[in-house]
């Protein structure tokens, strides 16, 4: 996976893409995090920590390495931006018991990352009870700097909302070939984050679940490439 390889790359090679939501400027980082320089605010979404363990509890013994791999990526992003505030936009854990049963060494990684900064855990449909035994504050949603942060996007177009939940991915078609990548999706009023967890899939922007959420004439998919983020207009995806 491109992002797993990125974790080992040097600082100067990172090709982030710039966007703005309700007039506030953000960078879309190729690791899948959103950063606002002005406020020292870092946003990630849909970490789905302990997904492997959640499946194992139901008899499907997926590799137990996903939590560690996701946290390692997160640590890299933290080192790069050194944010004052971290917002994790829900579905932080794949199931309700995930945060309580998480192995000690992974818990320690989060404690270490949270030192000297604020951390908000927004609740999601997978983890409606929030997290337990971890630093930071649990909230259903958050208003900050004129923006609203919540897990599931509200119905209809909404000015100044940053949400997750849908795991947007875009498919680009050119010359009878197609490339599908996770993306940040924004029309300038609302932004939907890509999922950050290493064992999470994507949902195509053309899917009905995205209908009515964006002004498609202004919709841009910031597609996550190997080393860069590529902004492509929704209309331009078909080539």
């Amino acid at each position, binding site marked *: *996976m491109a992002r*797993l390889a990125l974790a080992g790359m040097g600082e100067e090679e990172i090709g982030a893409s710039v966007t703005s939501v309700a007039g506030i400027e953000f960078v879309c980082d190729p690791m899948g995090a959103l950063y606002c320089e002005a406020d020292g605010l870092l946003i990630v979404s849909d970490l789905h920590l302990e*997904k492997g*363990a959640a*499946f*194992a*509890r139901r*008899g*499907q*013994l*997926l*590799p*137990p*390495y*996903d939590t*560690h*791999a996701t946290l390692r990526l997160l640590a890299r992003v933290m080192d790069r931006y050194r944010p004052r505030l971290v917002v994790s936009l829900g579905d932080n854990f794949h199931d309700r018991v995930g945060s309580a049963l998480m*192995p000690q060494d992974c818990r320690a990684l989060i404690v270490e990352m949270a030192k000297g900064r604020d951390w908000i855990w927004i609740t999601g449909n997978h983890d409606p009870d929030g997290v337990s035994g971890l630093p930071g504050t649990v909230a259903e949603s958050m208003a900050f700097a004129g923006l609203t942060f919540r897990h599931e996007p509200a119905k209809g177009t909404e000015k100044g909302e940053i949400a997750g939940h*849908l*795991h947007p991915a875009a*498919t*680009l*078609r*050119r*010359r009878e*070939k*197609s*490339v*599908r*990548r996770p993306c940040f999706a924004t029309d300038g009023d609302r932004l939907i984050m890509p999922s950050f967890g*290493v*064992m*999470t*899939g994507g*949902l195509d922007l053309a*899917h*009905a*679940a995205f209908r009515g959420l964006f002004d498609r004439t202004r919709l*841009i998919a910031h*597609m996550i*490439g*190997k080393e*860069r983020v*590529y*902004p*492509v*207009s929704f209309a*331009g*995806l*078909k*080539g």
Partner: protein
Amino acid sequence: METPSETSEVPSGADLLPVAFRRWFAEKGWKPRAHQLALLQKARSGKSVLLIAPTGAGKTLAGFMPSLTDLAERGRKKPGTAFQGIHTLYISPLKALAVDIERNLMKPVGEMGLPLTIETRTGDTPQGKRQRQKLNPPEILLTTPEQLALLIANAEAERFFADLRYVVFDELHSLVTSKRGHLLSLGLARLRRLAPGMQAIGLSATVADPLDLRKWLAPQTEDGEEAAADIVVAPGGARPLITILESEDRIPWSGHVARYAIPAIYEEIRTHKTTLIFVNTRSQAELVFQELWTVNDDSLPIALHHGSLDAGQRRRVEAAMAENKLRAVVATSTLDLGIDWGDVDLVIHVGAPKGASRLAQRIGRANHRMDEPSRAILVPANRFEVLECQAALDANYINAQDTPPSGDGALDVLAQHVLGMACAEPFSGDALYEEVRSALPYADLSRETFDRVLDFAATGGYALKSYDRYAKIRQRADGLWRVSNPQTAQQYRLNIGTIVESPMLNVRMVRKNKLGSLGRGGPVLGKIEEYFLEGLTQGDTFLFGGKVLRFEGIRENEALASQTFSMDPKIPAYAGGKFPLSTYLADGVRGLLADGSEWHRLPDQVRDWLEIQREVSSLPQRDQMLIETFPRGSRFFMVAYPFEGRLAHQTLGMLLTRRLDRMGARPLGFVATDYSLGIWGLDDMGELIARRKLDLQALFDEDMLGDDLEAWLDESFLLKRTFRNCAVIAGLIERRHPGQEKTGRQVTVSADLIYDVLRSHEPDHVLLQATRQEAAAGLLDIQRLGVMLRRIRGHILHRPLDKVSPLAVPILLEIGKEPVAGNASESLLAEAAEDLIRDAMQI
């Protein structure tokens, strides 16, 4: 069932037949055939037996002779006697074949008044009947490998199989080379433990190496003592009459459709009763079918049959075929195996057959009577295929065989079996290891590997031991392994089997109303792979089920399509049924190229093609490999002609481009066919060779199969596809069952993501080992590549040319048809991003 011979003298062993049999043969005016009696005789001596017989030789009756005679002598079970388990188990690769056999076996059994019941048990058997079969088993049970796996994983398996005397494997040659065969071999090992006196009987078409099959039927032992079943070989039938289609029209340089031959094929259909038209891939089937209907001025009943079509439609075609209502059927390998199909008097094979044994079996579909010759026509789709058809024709006349060997047992299959055995009853690791090794594919399995597979089945087999509390099977204080909970057994039953299909979606016809919106659904036409549909946008046209369809979109888990009158569809690129050229035929083609005295048998235009090639370049000797280098446009080309099949050439292409890149020759890409490999780049490779900057011997050295291969494998997308199959078979990922798919948000985890995480954290995991093993044998054809590299060492013939040669034309025409993977997708992204910038800068 085939009618026994009416001519031969009563052979020795006829006295083995019970009275009912002798009377039956006499009433029919028939005599038992020599091989039927020979098999009976050997079986009576207590041995397992392999019967090799051509189609139409009374193979099925022979296979059942030991059990029928045994049951005839045993007499009917008296009411009120104790439970009796099944006496004979018959296993066939196809459900339809089991049903067919039931019908054919009932007749003689009824006429002889034999005291026995015959029943089938397949995926379609209703639950109530299954239960009843367990309580009151029939004497003879006809079933499939998957059902056998379910039966032996049942807690009552011991009771059910305790009285088993015979197990009959039909079409054994087609089963053993796949993972299905691996699972079946483990099932046989278990049956042997449950019923120690049981004998195995294998029925097979002619194969290259009968010893392989004989060993498969017998328990292997540790001391290496040769353990093999006895063998009976029935004499071959009349020689088939095979010709290569002669056509006035120009034979194309490349391609696979054989459009040029359609009028000639149609003419053959008109002049025969029933014609079977075989093709190699489903997309070929669609195209040939469509082309035939465009010339079908007489509206002859011509049908289509391939694996993605709706099952109901396939059954209708089969039924119409059996009733002789069709004049022709265009079919893929789904019709390969021995079901009886009415009066077929001609087989046409479009495209080269790729293997001599496959051709022999397909030809055997025509004229099911041994003493009359089958009639077949080969239709090469391009010039190289003319050579290949000629080689196949020669091979068929000398009865050459090129079935592949059965290969090492797959570890994902073993993992599935281990879990199944725990569902049946608690087992000891030592005993199960011994049992597993008695199966031929696992005879060389090390204890260490077995233990890793066992660990995988229990807790996932990870170095990080965090799943002990979620173990599916556990070793208890008595040392035996048991299932942890009933849920595990249920999961096992849902995930059984080794056939993993790509995720498929139903294709449903819809009609557009006047306003342009879609009406409610019409009929389902069949299934298409999801990845193919994902590549379509609304309005794209494609060919499916013999119709040109317009793609309308995906709603929930169905693809919607409407009728269109477009005549030029986007071709369905879905995979399936692409066989590589067999080693045997490849050698034949090389021989034909080298020997000009044989060319008089080829069509004029093909002969001219070779003669010009000989003049402007060279034709390699049988043991040589020709390499041509030439410029064309702004590029430089290198074309090699190993004739080792597309898979091996693809692997070779990947490895060679890596090497050329390292040697500074700046390669840009490559394309592979069954016959040759073309590489193009920015530098003149011919000049580099001449100036000794590029050493061909070093370039084609066998050591490329070392580090280069490892490095490439790690980043290859091919491995991901293989991993998904292994993960499903091993039970790591659950199968998707129809109707179970959730809409919208995904609830499953993509196998690609699991692969990435596992590879970066535990590259030596047993499932990755299984994946590499399978890819090396299958997709990459590494063994064949290795043999080829050894063969050509010191025999490379380099011809620097100033322009493309006749032999190189076909491969140059393939360029641009192949998808490009790897870094190309990044440049597509960059290009699209630049579009956005350009749009933004416009005032």
